[in-house]
């Protein structure tokens, strides 16, 4: 039940970001589905691994792969599907809690949260790297065959 709720909310949230970045009208729902699957992956895997970094990593991979597949199928640039799905994963909350701890002069928590934020950003990068290089290597193999 919680997961369905998370799916719906993240779907609507991704659609909002999609319109903010003005993606083509026919692609709004598809990018919403990509973003929502990414968020649900984040939700489930960060509970399973008890770490937001691992959750973000798998979510970025899911968003990246779905984006590349949709881009291949509908012949649109992959960023159209990837960008609205990635935005909810960006660690805005981590940034906020780091700043909050700094303001309260709680440097231990600040270092903790700051490192986590940094690694979440790194996890997004590596997730996109994995999915993009996967899809481009598939493309290369197909061209040879």
């Amino acid at each position, binding site marked *: 039940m919680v997961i369905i709720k*998370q799916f719906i*909310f*993240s779907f*609507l*949230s*991704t*659609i*909002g*970001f999609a*319109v*903010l*970045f*003005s*993606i*083509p*009208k026919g*692609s709004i729902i598809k990018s919403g589905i990509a973003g929502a699957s990414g*968020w649900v992956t984040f939700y489930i895997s960060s509970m399973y691994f008890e770490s937001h970094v691992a959750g973000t990593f798998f979510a970025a991979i899911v968003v990246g792969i779905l984006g590349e597949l949709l881009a291949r199928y509908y*012949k*649109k*640039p992959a*960023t*159209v599907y*990837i*960008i609205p799905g*990635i*935005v*909810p994963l*960006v660690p*805005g*909350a981590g*940034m*906020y*809690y*780091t*700043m*909050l701890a*700094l*303001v*309260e002069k709680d440097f231990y928590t600040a270092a903790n949260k700051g490192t986590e934020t940094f690694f979440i*950003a790194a996890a*997004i*990068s590596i997730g*996109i*790297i994995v999915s*993009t*290089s996967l899809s481009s290597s598939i493309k290369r193999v197909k061209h040879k065959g």
Partner: protein
Amino acid sequence: MDFNENNKSEAKKILLLSALAGEIMLKNGAETYRVEDTIERICKSRMNIKYADAFVTTTGIFVSLEYQGEMMTYLIRIKSIKIDLNKINLVNEFSREFVNSDMSISKGLEKLKKINKVNNYSSWIKTLFGSLACAFFSLLFGGTFLDFISSYLVSLIVLISVNRIDKYKMIFFVNNFIGAVLASTLSILATKLGIGENMDIIIIASIMSLVPGVAITNAIRDTISGDFISGLSRGMEAIFSALAIAFGVGIVLNVYFKGMI
């Protein structure tokens, strides 16, 4: 001779066309490798142009092509980037159509100019949906219905004022900083007035519209495809936007905990 001259001006026109296509893509937030690829494809599609090359960074485009032993070069400086993924898609479709058909170059130029003017959504719809995205984000973080409403209102005001500030061509750092200051001040006000319940969640949700998601994604995609200069410069953009947001929130929180608001 006359015929030859005519062809030379055609070659110049195709250079202009490809540069314009690249400019529209880059200005609206495309990755550099996509821009380079599009420019080269458009140039090489006509009149036996064997050599055409493009060097694109986030702030400029250099294109040169060789036509009958003569080099021609064109340079465009890009100053402002705003995100409009629909235009990238339209130029992408245009280049595919142009390369695969016999479209005349002047018709192509006309089409590109039309694409440049396309407005997919009015700025009002963009702001309304953008703040809706932030509001639903507050629910994802476990906010209540009141938090939903207040983060909608806060991010609506933030987005409207950031759009206003954008017209004065400020640097992106100032933009994000002011946006974050506004977001956190208004969130504190909303909780004080009793519209919202959890201040943390409202602030987190309303800074989501400022967060550099596009810069991060493009920086990585550029770096993987080997454009390290663009990747680095976009990465710097992402880091400094994040710093601006963090400092904006931090200053307001500092004032708040000193008991001044």
